[in-house]
């Protein structure tokens, strides 16, 4: 029989007035197992805690029940009191006789008293079945993985590395830089995107604690906070990074030209290429789909019919340091990390679904990102804005907002946040390029909520002379080599028709290709648009429900550069704070599988939100569920899903819950 001590708190008059405390104490004394009952004015006060400690020692108590306020208030306080008296802190139970009793039944003393007695009885019944629990300490792998080498990922990597931790930065493309590298200038300051980004890219590549892995992708993630194990697929460049001097002969001489992804298909690159001049690393990569020699090899291997592609190999012949390595294949690397930062970014919405706007049908209907490349001095037109159809400079340009945003039938219901500002920027820049340009901007609402944004948007109207028209457009069609745009100005309430040279669609930002698969690999949630879900939208904006996995940038929601950088830094500070610790204390209230009862049905695996249930083979080769205590959060979903009743939850066992219920009768 246990030796349980019960302490009833008056909480001044908070409990003592609505509840007859002597009656509660008297009833409690009669409960089997209770050897000591005491009362306090304020049990949470130092004298109150002292009385508990003293009683534990003097009365040799092995369980403690405190009838007081909500455990959400003082559970931690009293657990510490128990510990300081030498008792395992998990041998404490609290009967919530204030919030759940005294304060809600204040006008009915007998009922409140009767309820308080029962609440204490339930707590005693549960406490009698409490077990000593021992949190585990686990080590922390003091390295971080940053997934995605756009501005958010670069910022996160730099900040974590500056805090003194090793970082691996994984990027799918051959260069880091992300979408920001494609931009010409940035709002609202109009500083050149490359000028502010390139130094950061170089810094990341030269930081002693940062390892860049470009052409690489995360394949699988195992483990838990502090101890992740990640498989990274390192794509083959077929160029030896050690030997390559980035001299550029290969990509200049390669005869195979294909549309450049970086230029949004508006310019050409060779089959061996760096995506853009300032690429980091500046090591070329061979595009195995287009390289003539690789096509020749595949042709022979597959014994295809027809004429074989030429055995080109010009790059190999001309490469001074002989860095071309045809033998190099993709490889799988497994590394350990303590924290993960996910910054996988966005991709632009494909406007071809709007048949009425003719994107993809009429060459002079382009997207905002395509215009960025046309405006960029390093772009396919050397910074001259020219119409894709005939190469003439456009004089009348129509911008259309909300292409795929705020559209529940063909796009997304959300606002992409950045378009209003970049349309204003484009209007200002076009006017700077050519003062004769007249811009028209169709908008539904101007969303200019950042610092200096509203002023910037005004500048487009007042100084750059952009004509803002409130309304969506309905159709774009060609007429005499130009484009007729049909819209409405909803402020005057009349249909509008503008004959334009160029139409620029502000395509929505949507999560990058493969976002949902990435979320599944990381056991984090994603919403119906496939943006990643934060642990709390306000108070934990860069954390996820999975400890140790942090988020930054447009993979959370469309973000502009300042926001992405801020989130990168925020995620880095969270990751660094985690990596600064030598060990982590686990929550001991985790699930536990009884291997004798487990039938291996693995219902638990199916319901566990944290992938905390692993499987093992027993000695007789039976599949058994095993809980990973590092990952288990103690929700208990597996317990109620377990048909043979093989799983229990420490701290809220089936027996304890049953005892609480039985104590009522």
């Amino acid at each position, binding site marked *: 029989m246990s030796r349980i001590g019960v302490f009833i708190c008056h909480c001044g008059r908070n409990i003592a007035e609505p509840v007859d405390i002597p009656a509660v104490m008297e009833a409690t004394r009669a409960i089997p197992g209770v050897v000591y009952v005491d009362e306090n004015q304020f049990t949470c006060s130092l004298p109150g805690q002292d009385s508990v400690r003293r009683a534990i020692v003097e009365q040799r108590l092995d369980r403690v029940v405190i009838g007081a306020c909500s455990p959400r208030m003082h559970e931690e306080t009293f657990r510490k009191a128990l510990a300081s008296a030498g008792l395992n802190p998990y041998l404490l139970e609290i009967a919530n006789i204030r919030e759940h009793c005294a304060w809600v039944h204040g006008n009915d003393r007998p009922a409140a008293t009767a309820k308080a007695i029962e609440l204490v009885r339930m707590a005693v019944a549960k406490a009698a079945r409490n077990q000593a629990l021992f949190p585990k300490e686990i080590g922390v792998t003091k390295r971080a993985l940053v997934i995605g080498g756009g501005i958010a990922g670069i910022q996160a990597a730099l900040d974590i590395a500056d805090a003194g931790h090793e970082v691996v930065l994984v990027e799918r493309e051959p260069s880091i830089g992300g979408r920001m590298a494609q931009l010409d200038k940035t709002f609202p300051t109009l500083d050149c995107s490359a000028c502010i980004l390139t130094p950061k890219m170089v810094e990341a590549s030269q930081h002693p604690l940062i390892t860049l892995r470009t052409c690489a992708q995360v394949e699988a993630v195992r483990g838990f906070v502090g101890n992740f194990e990640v498989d990274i697929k390192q794509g083959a460049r077929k160029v030896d990074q050690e030997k390559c001097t980035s001299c550029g002969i290969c990509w200049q001489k390669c005869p195979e030209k294909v549309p450049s992804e970086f230029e949004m298909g508006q310019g050409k690159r060779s089959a061996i290429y760096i995506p853009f001049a300032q690429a980091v690393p500046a090591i070329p990569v061979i595009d195995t789909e287009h390289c003539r020699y690789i096509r020749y090899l595949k042709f022979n291997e597959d014994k295809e019919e027809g004429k074989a592609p030429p055995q080109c190999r010009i790059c190999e012949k001309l490469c001074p340091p002989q860095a071309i390595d045809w033998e190099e294949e993709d490889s799988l690397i497994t590394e350990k990390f303590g924290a993960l930062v996910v910054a996988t970014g966005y991709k632009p919405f494909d406007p071809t679904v709007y*048949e009425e706007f003719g994107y993809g049908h009429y060459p002079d209907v382009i997207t905002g990102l395509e215009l960025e490349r046309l405006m960029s001095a390093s772009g396919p037109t050397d910074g001259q804005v020219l119409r894709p159809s005939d190469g003439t400079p456009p004089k009348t340009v129509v911008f259309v907002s909300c292409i795929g945003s705020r559209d529940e039938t063909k796009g997304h219901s959300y606002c992409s946040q950045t378009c209003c500002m970049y349309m204003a920027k484009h209007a200002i820049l076009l006017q700077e390029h050519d003062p004769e340009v007249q811009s028209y901007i169709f908008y539904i609402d101007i969303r200019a909520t950042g610092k200096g944004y509203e002023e910037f948007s005004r500048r487009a109207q007042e100084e750059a002379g952009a004509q803002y028209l409130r309304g969506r457009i309905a159709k774009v*069609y060609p*007429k*005499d080599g130009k484009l007729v745009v049909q819209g409405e100005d909803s402020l005057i309430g009349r249909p509008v028709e503008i004959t334009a040279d160029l139409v620029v669609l502000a395509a929505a930002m949507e999560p990058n290709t493969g976002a949902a698969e990435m979320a599944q690999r990381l056991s984090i949630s994603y919403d119906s648009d496939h943006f990643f879900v934060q642990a709390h939208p306000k108070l934990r904006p860069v954390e996820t429900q999975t400890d140790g996995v942090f988020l930054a940038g447009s993979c959370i929601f469309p973000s502009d550069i300042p926001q992405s950088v801020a989130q990168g830094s925020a995620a880095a500070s969270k990751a660094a704070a985690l990596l600064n610790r030598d060990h982590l204390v686990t929550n001991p209230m985790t699930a536990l599988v009884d291997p004798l009862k487990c039938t291996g049905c693995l219902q638990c695996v199916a319901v566990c939100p944290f992938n905390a249930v692993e499987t093992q083979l027993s000695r007789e080769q039976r599949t058994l569920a095993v809980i990973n205590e590092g990952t288990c959060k103690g929700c208990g979903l597996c317990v109620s899903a377990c048909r043979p009743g093989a799983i229990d939850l420490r701290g809220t066992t089936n027996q304890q819950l049953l005892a609480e219920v039985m104590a009522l009768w």
Partner: protein
Amino acid sequence: MSPATYAYYPGCALHSTAKEYDVSTKLVTKALGIELRELEDWICCGASSAHTISRPLSISLPAHELVSAGKQGLPLVTSCAMCFSRLKFSSKEIQDPETREMVGQVLGEEVPENQEVNHLLEVLSREEIPVTRSLSGLRIACYYGCLLTRPAAVTQFDDSVENPQIMDRLLQRLGAETLDWPFKTECCGAGMLIPRRDIVIKLSHRLLYQARQAGANCLAVACPVCHSNLDLRQREMRSRYGDHFDLPVLYFTQLIGLAMGFSPAEMLLDHHFSDPMPLMREQGWVKKG
């Protein structure tokens, strides 16, 4: 393989203003071995008028034909885009059991829940058409009108609402050149011809202007209402906008007939107001002289 027998709902216009559409439809389908059994007691679908006057009537009138076709156990086909639209809307409305009951009450008959409704274009686009005289030389702007593709959820007509291809592909197979033009599904003014002729002339002018811009030497249509608006009013457009189009507007069935070897006279090409004969002569369909 499409069934060879259909319940045929011509609609009012095909017995009057669109006589040439009816005649060409019957000749072409017969030659292709498709049997069109004209519904015996068909009535008007209510067209563009009934639905603004009475909802029970606007659903019940087309449902009358759904009932008749259902009794014969045949899929329904119509040549008129307006009728097609009304039939499709009615089919959709009667998916709701309460509405179906209401319509049953109005018609005094049980209304079938699912009756297949086709536009003739859908049926003929599935056919192998034997070409004896290629349509090469014709640069056709295919005009679908508003009601074949819209609303997509109701008509389920073509993959594309704004730029349908079904008629283009059909006529291409017959050797014609069809044009990529942006007004394939813009409205011609529909039933406003009598009360607001100004709207019809303005909208139809816009269409013909765009068709000519695109380089068309004729238009192909699949609706008698569109045909009237585009064919009949070219002279008024000329006096109002100064544009002298003289663009023949032909039913797609007439074009199929020509390709299958029927003569322009058999296809009643002389029934149009905007005379197709100069084009026919120029293209060698009819001997000059």
